[in-house]
């Protein structure tokens, strides 16, 4: 079974994000970049499947030079090879999905894994978009997966329960927390990764259909309010939680 895993670098999830001077982008200086945490679940699942059934894992990323770090981390975790769809500068989601779908079509894969979202823009769109472009079935936010006999059974969480899907292969699966425990790249794996190939592919220009106009900070949180003291304050507090904050029904 050959599997492609879509990976991406994101700012450290604990980093404080600031905007640049003209608020056109985030300030990237002094940011620490890490592999998007949900991509680690995607990588681990792909590695486990190929360890059990044979085949190869190919990590694929899209972007400029810096995005190559994601491939190095994926190769250190155990990916067999990597593809870098290389392009500097900004593209919208469709452009990204197009480039990744092209890179997938250039290979031969039975499955594609991705993190269900990248923790920077939180779009959760690339997996389903790539699946649509490939015309493959897609199950998102999967936290339990079984693969065998040319099909998969995937479980995802919904409000108050679970949803179980079956799909035939090839298919796209996006990984949610709980799917597995991602491994730490071993020192041996890191040294072996140095010898593994990273293939660079050309990316054709796709006219963006959306434009990023600018970024704004979220409004500052208003200061807390004390509605009263002791038991007599409870009804007012409950009323405010229900009517104003709308956190209870």
């Amino acid at each position, binding site marked *: 079974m050959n599997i492609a895993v879509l990976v991406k670098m994101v700012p450290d999830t604990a980093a404080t994000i600031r905007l640049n001077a003209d608020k056109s982008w985030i300030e990237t200086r002094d940011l620490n970049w890490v592999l998007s945490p949900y991509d680690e679940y995607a990588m681990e699942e792909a590695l486990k499947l190929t360890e059990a059934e044979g085949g190869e894992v190919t990590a694929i990323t899209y972007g400029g030079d810096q995005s190559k770090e994601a491939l190095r981390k994926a190769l250190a975790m155990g990916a067999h090879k990597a593809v870098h769809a290389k392009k500097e500068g900004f593209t919208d989601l469709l452009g990204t999905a197009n480039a990744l779908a092209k890179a997938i079509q250039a290979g031969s894969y039975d499955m594609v894994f991705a993190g269900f979202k990248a923790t920077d823009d939180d779009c959760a769109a690339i997996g389903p978009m790539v699946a649509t472009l490939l015309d493959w079935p897609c199950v998102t936010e999967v936290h339990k997966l079984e693969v065998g006999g040319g099909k998969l059974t995937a479980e995802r969480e919904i409000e108050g329960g679970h949803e179980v899907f079956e799909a035939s292969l090839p298919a796209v699966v996006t990984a949610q927390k709980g799917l597995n425990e991602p491994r730490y*790249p071993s*020192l041996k794996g890191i*040294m072996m*990764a140095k010898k593994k190939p990273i293939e660079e592919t050309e990316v054709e220009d796709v006219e963006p259909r959306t434009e990023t106009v600018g970024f704004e900070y979220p409004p500052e949180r208003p200061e807390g309010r004390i509605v009263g003291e002791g038991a007599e304050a409870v009804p007012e507090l409950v009323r405010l939680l229900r009517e104003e904050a709308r956190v209870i029904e």
Partner: protein
Amino acid sequence: MAYAGIDYYKIDDLLTDEERLVRDSVREWVNDRVIPGIEGWYRDAVFPMDRVPEMAELGLFGPTFPEEYGGAGIGDVAYGLAMQELERGDSGFRSFCSVQSALVMYPIFTWGTDEQKRNLLPKLATGELLGAFGLTEPDYGSDPGSMITTAKKVDGGYLLNGAKMWITNSTIADILVVWAKLDGVVNGFLVEKGAKGLDCPETSGKWSLRASVTGEIILQDVFVPEEMRMPDAVGLKCPLMCLNQARYGIVWGVLGAAQHCYESTLRYTTEREQWGGPINRHQMVQERLVIMLSEITKGQLMAYRLGRMKEQGKASFRHVSLAKRNNCEQALNIARTARDLHGANGIADEYPIMRHMMNLESVYTYEGTHNMHTLIVGADITGIEAYK
């Protein structure tokens, strides 16, 4: 990954991709698997043995050795970075890996027979076998050449007699590298757990390295077969070369402990308010934070340069002594300053400070005391061996 490391002088830019990946992988493991449990293990004075297979899986035992012996073939700077991250967790974890890699696998790799290397190194790398290193004796620490442990040639092997003290992991080790005098010359022997006449009682009552096992090695007519002597491990220079490897790991390791103390202090003094504002607005606090950062940065540059020299075969034991001496002293100073700036909270195990401080008190004097390293460098620059 919440912690990005202290890197005021962009030393990251001097590292290779592999070195950064090694550092980050060990850092992540320490964040997830050491830091959440360490205060409890320290309190209970136990080393969590279930972490041993995890460390082996990561490749922390003998990572600088070639792959055929279970290593990863990483360079000295990458190894140092791994030690730094481990000791940010706790000196006990770094000590565990130092002993296995630098004090047990290194002598077998350097002076062992092909058979000893083939049989033992891969198993030591996977943690299937654990090792310990017996040089120090109750009456001979800085002066190991005067040791009284002896080996006597007998039919088919040797009989060992004597006692070793302050031995990390002696009680849990499967293989003990024991140094003993054979006809007045120090020789290296591999003693197996369970040998008749061998006893390894645990040393209790430590106020330092509590999450690390320390014990003695008592040898009473312990028979070591001929094939378990390391034929080329002859002369006092051999155990000293082992210590030199371990000291190199300490040079980096203590920087990890120091960074953890600094990081905690910077946060604490920002959050702690007195007279209506954070205490880090006071000049006395700021100066001490800056001294901590300055010493960490100098120590990093020293460790980095020493590592590159070691990779090029240019680092002598004198260079290692200067860095071990400096970085241990500064790390201990940083821990003590951190203890002070945390006020009463500095003694509570809600913060890592007192634990690191007590650990560093050991690291300051083990693997060659601070004074000995001073005199080693002193002897080098003046030509006078003042310690004798």
